[in-house]
């Protein structure tokens, strides 16, 4: 039995919400940016006119302004994005109870059982698209397929405000030429390995021999091949977003082995940045910071510490994780990867002023982070930071210490 899966992705979500509520912004290059008071903020989402001028997610504000001097910079309003996100899910939920959110602005829907009541998957997609426009004043791109991975490729294929159906009869024609990085789960580390082996497109990955892939990438290579062939069997997991999210984590296999405290510190600051960003997206703070460490022989351990007060500051999360690290690792051998997790989340939607960074965090802490980011960018390239910006809960298993594979993730919101 074939399944019918939709992947719906709100286009330039934060910027679209801002342009909806302020018509004066429409048609202009707009970027929603974090932390502009301190002049260290980055672009969280850019409007299409801004993107066309070279403004990208993850850019520092000053860089964005350099690319586009008339850029309108808007601070983020997470409670408002969550409100609209909730309404988006109400729309999705009126067609199926199998809705799996992926971040605030994306979701998979399994509409296999919805045909009788609501029509074909394409009809449902068209109705969702029209309702989102009418009810919320923003647009979505929708991918329609028989599995989650391909549906996501479909929603990425054409934007904004588009519907792409990818089924076995047009699969090779549409998907095979796409760069291998378009595949969910192919992050920078995996991409580098694949490209070194001459595998630059999804088609080449699909046609690569299993032998070769398992030698180069282990088990993950075989999983990726099935994804590339459009054979993702994973079900759509329904969950209520905030309640269901117990923790927010991000782990990463380093682009090379980590050999000293400085290397680790850089990675932890980078990962904490994405954890903090994710917390702020959820309008949550974490009360516990967890550290995960894996060495070159794949031995791993975790440590965690309860904070005096819940935080969503990347500096505080990173410092806690780094302190845990220094107390618990003594460099018997280089490391392959580290992970950071914030857990025991508390809701800050009501009452707490959602300043992007806790007031108590001083400027010099931020400068440290920026320094680390700069060094990292210098060492591993600019994308190393963008790539890590957002990691969402279906992938939290990636930092599960019971598993030895940490999936690098080549996905970020925008």
């Amino acid at each position: 039995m074939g399944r019918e899966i939709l992947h719906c992705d709100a286009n330039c979500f934060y910027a679209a919400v801002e342009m909806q509520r302020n018509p004066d912004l429409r048609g202009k290059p707009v970027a929603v940016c974090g932390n502009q008071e301190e002049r260290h903020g980055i672009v969280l989402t850019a409007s299409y006119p801004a993107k066309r001028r070279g403004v990208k997610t993850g850019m520092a504000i000053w860089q964005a302004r350099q690319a586009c001097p008339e850029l309108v910079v808007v601070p983020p309003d997470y409670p408002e994005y969550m409100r609209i996100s909730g309404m988006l899910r109400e729309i999705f939920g009126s067609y199926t109870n199998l809705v799996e959110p992926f971040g605030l602005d994306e979701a998979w829907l399994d509409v296999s059982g919805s045909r009788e009541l609501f029509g074909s998957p394409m009809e449902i997609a068209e109705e969702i698209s029209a309702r989102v426009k009418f009810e919320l004043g923003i647009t979505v791109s929708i991918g329609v397929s028989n599995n989650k991975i391909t549906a996501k490729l479909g929603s990425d294929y054409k934007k904004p405000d588009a519907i792409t159906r990818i089924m076995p009869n047009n699969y090779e024609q549409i998907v095979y030429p796409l760069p291998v990085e378009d595949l969910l789960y192919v992050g920078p580390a995996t991409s580098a390995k694949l490209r070194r082996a001459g595998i630059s497109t999804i088609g080449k990955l699909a046609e690569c021999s299993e032998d070769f892939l398992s030698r180069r990438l282990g088990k993950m290579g075989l999983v990726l091949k099935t994804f590339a062939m459009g054979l993702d069997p994973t079900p759509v997991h329904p969950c209520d977003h905030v309640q269901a999210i117990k923790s927010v984590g991000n782990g990463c296999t380093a682009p090379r082995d980590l050999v000293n405290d400085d290397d680790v510190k850089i990675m932890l600051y980078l990962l904490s940045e994405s954890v903090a960003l994710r917390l702020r997206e959820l309008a949550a703070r974490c009360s516990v910071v967890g550290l995960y460490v894996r060495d070159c022989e794949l031995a791993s351990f975790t440590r965690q510490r309860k904070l005096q007060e819940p935080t969503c500051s990347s500096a505080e999360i990173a410092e806690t994780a780094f302190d845990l690290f220094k107390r618990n690792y003594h460099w018997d051998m280089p490391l392959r990867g580290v992970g950071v997790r914030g857990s025991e989340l508390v809701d800050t939607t009501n009452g707490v002023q959602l300043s992007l960074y806790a007031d108590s965090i001083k400027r010099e802490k931020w400068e440290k982070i920026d320094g680390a980011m700069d060094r990292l960018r210098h060492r591993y390239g600019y994308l190393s930071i963008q790539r890590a910006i957002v990691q969402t809960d279906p992938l939290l298993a990636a930092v599960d210490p019971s598993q030895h594979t940490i999936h690098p993730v080549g996905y970020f919101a925008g």
Partner: protein
Amino acid sequence: MEERRIRKYVPVTLRVDENGKIRPLVIEFDEQHKYLVDKVLDVRRAACQSAGGVGDRFTCRIQGQETYIWLEKGRWFIAAKPEYLTPDEAESKPET
């Protein structure tokens, strides 16, 4: 492209029925202009394209004319033509 309007937040007199359903009775455009709502014709979630904003849109019949009024985050607004706004309202930024 729809004509640009401005969100004008207005005081509203409400009736709450035994099921908790609410219905606007009087809309106060300003001190001199308080309008009786003859009938609520429709309620649905809708974006206000012309002025921005997302909420429950009430289609009301007022003095024989159909008018929209939005309930967003507990406040009521209408999409007013800029020329009907007081200078204060016209200058004030749409959102907090």
